[in-house]
């Protein structure tokens, strides 16, 4: 079995060989994520005023994409994985936003 998989990885070429970052770089990424989380939590203590919601949404998206791209290697891997995963994600966002919209969910919030 292992031969088959190895074979596959080799045909995949250089991408598969070196995908990902070095351990040190992973730690940097994690530090950035930790810092972003700290900013998120700080919204609980400090009043961000009108920037409250946008800040949280941007930070959430950035964290999400960072983990997906670097920890899950999507940035370095074959594009097909990206298409498969993001098609599910984007479909979920569209469908469920449409669903909440029919309940006038976004209007209530103003």
């Amino acid at each position, binding site marked *: 079995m292992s031969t088959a998989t190895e074979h596959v990885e080799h045909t995949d070429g250089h991408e598969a060989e070196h995908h990902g970052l070095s351990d040190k770089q992973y730690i940097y990424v994690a530090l950035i994520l930790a810092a972003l989380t700290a900013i998120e939590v700080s919204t609980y203590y400090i009043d961000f005023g009108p920037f409250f919601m946008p800040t949280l949404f941007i930070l959430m998206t950035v964290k999400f994409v960072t983990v997906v791209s670097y920890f899950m290697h999507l940035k370095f891997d074959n594009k097909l994985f990206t298409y498969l995963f993001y098609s599910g994600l984007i479909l979920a966002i569209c469908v469920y936003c449409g669903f909440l919209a029919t309940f*006038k969910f976004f209007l209530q919030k103003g």
Partner: protein
Amino acid sequence: MTIIERPTTEVAVAGGAPSGVKPSEALGVFKRPAASTSWRDWIVTVDHKKLGIMYGVSAFFFFLIGGVEALLIRLQLIAPNGKVLNADQYNQMFTMHATTMVFLFVMPMAAAFANYFVPLQIGARDVAFPRINAFGFWCFLFGGLFLNSSWFLGGGADGGWFMYAPNSSTLFSPSHGIDFWTVGLQITGIASLTGAINLIVTILNMRTKGMKMMRMPIFTWMVLVTQFLLLFAIPVITVALFLLTFQRSFGATFFDVASGADPLLWQHLFWIFGHPEVYIMILPSFGIVSEVIPVFSKKPLFGYPIVAMSGAAIGFVGWGVWAHHMFASGLGPVSVAVFSMSTMAIAVPTGVKIVNWVMTMWGGKLTFTIPMMFAIALIVQFTIGGLSGVTHAVAPADTQQTDTYYIVAHFHYVLFGGAVFGLFSGFYYWWPKMFRRQLNNAIGKWNFWLMVIGMNLTFGPMHILGLQGQPRRMQVWTEARAGEGFFNLGFWNRIASIGSFTLGTGVLLFLVNVVYTHKSKKVAIAPLDPWDARSLEWMTQSPPQEHNFDVLPTVSHLDEFFHRKYETDSSTHGVTQVRSAEEVMAELNAHPDEHIHMPSRSYWPILLASSLPVIGYGVIYNRTLMAVGAGLILLTMFGWAMEPSTSPDDDFDPPAPGEGGGHTKELSPLG
């Protein structure tokens, strides 16, 4: 069980292959099951073809159950104040009829064809995850049996197949029927999800050399689209079913208006799943007729890329139309307008397909074999159903039609006239491939005409009944309100009931045909290529040996098999046959592949799947049993994880060159 008994080649394979297959005791808890020809082999098999046949047989079994339920409904409505069923039984009957037909017949029957033919059509030796494939089948079977066991444990589900709140609450449905329904569908959902992942990976990753995406047969394309729909739709119904289970068994109030909940939550979740679901049911049949029509028109499919892409477009737009099932629920004018428009838009790619089929037949040399007749019937009946569907897209008209028999007429025209006719076309078309015998033509004609006439007699009058205002799901109608003359409800109800029994007879004739074909001594063995077919699944023996192809073909054309048999004459632009199917096979198999590894049989799929109903009964009756079931799942998963998918000594080699391609030799007398 002639249906699942494979004829003589089984012996040939059993003699050749399993000499190498030995139980490996070193790994796993159990001895690894060895290949055999006994019934036990069907339990441990991971062969996609055997699983396909088992899907087919089980689905047909549920089709008969669902059919009996339908006949009971029509018997109840044949006369005013029907006494056959009481109101409660009637509720259970129509709920279980729909649930059975949708989840236990059409979907798994499509899965049967997909399992059997997708690997063959793309030139693969098996699916990507053979054990998960087996697991999926057992989940479907056990889920279906679990669901139907409710008949013996206090009655079936009775909330209608879309199980709207508040009817689904314990207040209005105190029996356990709906609990069986939610858990049973959850289990069959696992089957669909694992099947979806499996088939998508198979299609993306296991195509033979040269089989580009745009060279795949349309059936495979439609299966791919269907499986993507399943992949993303199943989790939505999973959420809905969990919420309902939590409400009924654990005291949550997700759909209880009195506690401030919104019953529309269920409707949305159900139809976000439910609308892709209708394409999940119809697209495989579209795929089948797209295979059948070119073969019997002796022409390539008109606009192949457009047919493939319109299928994908249907799959995509199918996500944006779910709320058209809810026009009468007070969504608000903006939502209604948006979903009304998207619904009209989805008629376009569907219409494109119909145009393509008609254009394929245009100017072709048509042969009206039974599969072709069913395929043409699909085009006609589905178009009628599609047109009445467009009238639902117009929201003001739809508010008139909602919950009347007009809706029932519409979806039976698209599902019976569309999906089921497509499946029957597939039975007749592929039967010689699967069982080496052709179904009888004369009985087939009776089968076909009785089904077509029966279906139009049954569902045609329902348009009138619906527009006259007969609501669906009412267990009686009365003479006093039946109206007069041409629009008399009694008259049309009687016609519909008579039609339903005609239809039932037609379906029974199919069974008769199967038994006749396999029991009668007079039926000859089918030739290798009885239809002069075009795609790869015909380029191996019938039924295919366990490893499908002695040599994996290299593909250079769409309709590869056709191009190996025929050559175009450049001066006249006509085609002439240069090789027979047997010659193509012999050429292909001149140097059979060696060391073919096939996945080994395993006990774990059935064991893992059988622990799911244990949890199910636990949810309904006893929390301890739930824990037992969870423990079983954990144990069987560990067992599974420790078992390598191929036991090391499992190796298939073709017969020695001296004996020279045993398979081709064996085939020659058939030609």
